[in-house]
Every structure is written in structure tokens, then in C-alpha cells.
């Protein structure tokens, strides 16, 4: 079964993003929200990690990006921006939600 993994903490402050990345399988999806959106920024150590995850879709919550002043152009290519409705759609589409709180 494929999971939607959610990460809401900054990858610079906490281990949860790295831990999530270590436990995702092909076919699953990752949603970055709250302070987790910083993992979606180009030009940091996170970019390589995101790009090397094979067969995993990445999403980032637009409202949280905007709140933090991260413009869409700074988001890593291939990471899709969604709103809360998109978050709900992903939670419904994937078979379960795993929160890396």
C-alpha cells in the first residue's frame, strides 16, 4: 500500500525530514508543510535528497510557502505546490497518511 508521508518540521532544525526520506518506498508521496516547506527550497542540502528519491512524488503546501516568504521560483523542480484542498486529495488518494511529527 502506498502512503502519503507528511513532514512539518524544518530539515535544518529537526531530524524528521531525513527520517521520513529513509522510510519511503517507490509509489509513495511526501507532503512538506508548516516549517517542513523549507525542505522544498532549491540550493540547499535537501535538493539532492529530494531529487534522488526514485518513484516518489513530492508536494509542498503553497500557503505555508507564502507565509514564509518562499517564492514559487525557489521551489525545487518537480516538487508540486498544492493548497489545503490538494492536501486532502492526496490524503484520500494514497492508502494512508504517515506523519513524521
Amino acid at each position, binding site marked *: *500500500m*502506498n502512503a502519503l508521508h507528511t513532514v512539518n518540521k524544518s530539515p535544518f532544525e529537526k531530524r524528521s525530514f531525513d527520517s521520513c526520506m529513509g522510510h519511503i518506498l517507490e509509489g509513495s508521496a511526501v507532503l512538506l508543510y508548516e516549517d517542513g516547506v523549507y525542505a522544498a527550497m532549491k540550493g540547499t542540502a535537501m535538493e539532492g535528497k529530494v531529487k534522488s528519491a526514485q518513484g516518489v512524488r513530492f508536494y509542498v503546501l503553497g500557503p505555508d510557502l507564502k507565509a514564509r516568504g518562499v517564492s514559487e521560483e525557489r521551489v525545487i523542480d518537480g516538487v508540486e505546490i498544492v493548497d489545503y484542498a490538494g492536501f486532502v486529495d492526496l490524503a484520500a488518494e494514497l492508502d494512508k497518511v504517515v*506523519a*513524521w*511529527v
Partner: protein
Amino acid sequence: MSEEIKNFLYLNRRAPYGTIYAWESLEVVLIGAAFDQKVSLAFVDDGVFQIAKGQDTSGIGMKNFSPTYAALGDYDVHQLFVEKESLEERGLTVDDLMHLTWEDEDEDWAEKDSIQVVSRLELAEIIAAQDVVFSF
């Protein structure tokens, strides 16, 4: 209530005492054991410290809840997955953990180990196989 049996995984990633998550997560496991679901626990990241042996909280004035893990077997909760990589990063081996057991009704109440050390990839597959994952 539905008769459907689900696979429940409790994902434990926090150290004990610094925060209450480990203890209040265990309270959910105990209550949840009364429901007819298939339950397992995963200890990942600092979660492996939850089941370290020799915990003694007398000096910090907090309740030592670690003996409760030993009681899980009596509640028919005996699938405790511990991540190998998480142990190694912390300089721990399975000998640093409490010896947690359960008695197998189907094999004349033979005592068996509850803890299974699994690799990160195996744990990823265990997570993938669940119906519900609880995070605290």
C-alpha cells in the same frame, strides 16, 4: 462498530522523559489493546531509547513508566520492531534494551521475544503494510 480487523502501527520516534509523547503513546497502546486489531510498535530514531534497560527516574521526580513495556505481552501486544540503524547511530545493541517477552498461547505458552530488530528498509516495508499509523 465495524468487524473489520486493521493493522495498527504505533510509530515511536521520541526519547522518554524529555517529553511526554512516549508515555502518552503507551497509554494509547494499552487502551487500544482492548480493541480487536492487529497491533505492532516501531521504535525508530530516538524512540529506541524508550526501551533502554536500567531506567531509574528517582532523581528527576518523574514516574518511571518503562516497566509498562514489559506488561505489553500480557495485553497481547508482542510485535515490537526496533530499527537496527537507529540503534547503531546511538552506539546501542539489543543487549542495551529491556528483555521483553510474551507467551505464545498456540505453543503451550512458550516464552518468546517481543523485540525484533529490523533494518530501515524492512521497517519501510512494515510501515507500507499498515492500515493505520499512529504518530505522537
